């Protein structure tokens, strides 16, 4: 029973919100490669969402292109989620390893990513009056992913319902703290860089004179 290939496991987990991840855990299945592929797809989906949208819905500023916001919206956010969840749930008697959290969370993102791609395609076919169809798809995609993500956390750590809610809330707080520290660290690095470059310039001038 349940002799599925890795690809079939993705389908199984996504289409069975309540016991899909439990089955996966029971079978010790799930592939890091597929998780990485999903995150890569998320990254491309965010770029498509920002840049390739139908012109009638969104005018994108196309004089410059910066990849950083798209990286932040996909890879960085996901990494912060995984690390935040791992650090919180280690303290809360969670059974998930960081690898499993990563795999399960990535699998849970599939409906969201599918929704992004579908809407980018639809935005070239529909007009503004029919935007409601895209909103429905978006709502379904986001809602489905939310349920899956909840179920993924619940089964990877073997939590009860209430404890999962608590853990998710704490994870969000942890994510905020991490992002705050990240910004702080960046500005600190910048300060140090300016300091060093000023000293360098100063010494450089002295040597020349």
């Amino acid at each position, binding site marked *: 029973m349940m002799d599925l290939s890795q690809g079939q496991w993705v389908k199984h987990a996504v289409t069975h919100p309540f016991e899909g991840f439990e089955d996966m855990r029971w079978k010790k299945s799930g592939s890091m490669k597929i998780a990485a592929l999903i995150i890569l797809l998320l990254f491309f989906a965010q770029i498509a969402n920002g840049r390739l949208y139908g012109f009638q819905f969104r005018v994108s500023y196309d004089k410059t292109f910066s990849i950083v916001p798209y990286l932040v919206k996909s890879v960085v956010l996901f990494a912060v989620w995984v690390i935040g969840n791992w650090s919180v749930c280690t303290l809360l008697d969670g059974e998930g390893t960081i690898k499993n959290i990563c795999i399960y969370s990535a699998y849970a993102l599939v409906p969201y990513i599918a929704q992004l791609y579908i809407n980018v395609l*639809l935005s070239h076919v529909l007009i503004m009056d029919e935007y409601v169809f895209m909103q429905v798809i978006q709502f379904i995609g986001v809602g489905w992913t939310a349920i899956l993500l909840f179920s993924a956390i619940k089964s990877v750590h073997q939590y009860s319902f209430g404890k999962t809610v608590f853990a998710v809330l704490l994870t969000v707080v942890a994510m905020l703290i991490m992002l705050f520290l990240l910004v702080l660290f960046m500005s600190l690095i910048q300060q140090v860089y300016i300091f060093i470059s000023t000293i360098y310039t100063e010494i450089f001038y002295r040597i020349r004179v």
Partner: protein
Amino acid sequence: MKKSIRKLLPLILSGVLLGGTAASLIASAGEPYDVYNYDRWGEAIPSQAGYIADRTVSGYDLGIGPMDSPSDIFCDHNRIFYIADTKNNRVIALDSELDRVVEIYDEFRLPDGSVTTLDQPEGIFVSAENDCIYIADSNNERVLVCNYDSEVVMEIVRPDSELFSAPTFRPKRVVADKAGNVYVVLDNITTGAAMFGPEGEFTGFYGANRVQPTSEIISNYIRNIFSSEEKKASRPRNVPTGITSFDIYGDFIFTCTASSTQTTDTVKKLNAAGKNIFANLELAFGDYTPIYDASQNKLFSPAICDIDIADDGNINCLDLTTGRVFQYDEDCNLLFITGTIAKQVGGFNQVSALESLDNCLYVLDSQKNTVTVFVETSFGEVVHEAAELYNAGYYEEALEPWYEVLRRDGNYRRAYIGVASALLRKGDYKGSMKYAKLADAPLIYDKAFEGWRREFLKEHFTEIAAITAVLAAVLIYIGKRKKKKPAGISAADMENTEKKEE
């Protein structure tokens, strides 16, 4: 000469040219500045000049001695220009070519036969209804209403009313409407323009500005909730900046406010009830990016010190900070930017007033003591023609002029909008989509796309139906084969549900 231009250019244009655009600048001949316009993103881009400086007229040219700090210029219905020559205590009337003095008004006969003179007149207006000259006689604290023969018809002085609490009455600008009501902009009054009836009786204030909700005002408001009456009384009150100048056009009065701090209500279009029609539109007048002056370590934001509505409805705003005239069409779309701070013809020291007649702009400089005449270029003519047709709803008639505009200036965004709208009206959806995309106008693009999609579906209905039928058949076949060895929901089924939602 050339060196001085080179030295000046970076100063003038520091706030104008954003990175990367400088390379493609083509300065039009004779301008002491580079002509620019704004694109959809509010970034300055090079453009063609709509007006060029033709000449300047000073008091010497007219043979009446130099003007001294002139502060207002007005052109009446007989095409006579009136200039309030403030420090010389006189009003000069010139013909429409600005080369002959028609009359100099400096002494007036009161009804009782005595003679009165002006003391620093700052505003001038001539009513077409009753052929009266209205002079804001600032230091005498009165508005003088007289006829062309210097006979005073009426004097408006500080009203003896409870409503009027200010101790002074220093009129700066004056206009009169068709019914003979007189509106006076007063110095140090923030409650709007004082309004007087046809007989000179005070009837109230008109068109006050709103207070801009800055963070300081909001925090003061929150603090006032908790503080005592005494503390509240000692705090500075939140009052808006007073009106600087206005102009009347048809039934509407346009006001402008020169304030370096306030950005709301800098330009207003007031109806007879004093309601601002521009109030809820997200409009910005003047330069978008404030100019930084390193020598004073200050940011200079636009200060619209005079406004003039041309006969075709275009709104001309005069910016004191940059010495520029911003011309908008009646829907407040930016058409042209003209002028600068410079020594040459076409540049100013300190602008004070603005007037328009036919296709010319007249800008008064209170330090150079001159009137600068700007004439419309051929490019300006085409744009004005196109914009006028477009705003009147003649989209298809405006198509040719808009194409002409694009041939001359491929950066002119309004032209792309005009072409897209015209092509949409004509039913050329593909072309309309192309131009709407170039104009960054998603609403027009949406309509054009709807039309294009409808035509596409009509034309290719057989192919689409055939492909759909084949696809459906294939999907059903795959589904049947999958059912023999079940494994949850198949990919084909998922695609099916998506198709339905589509």
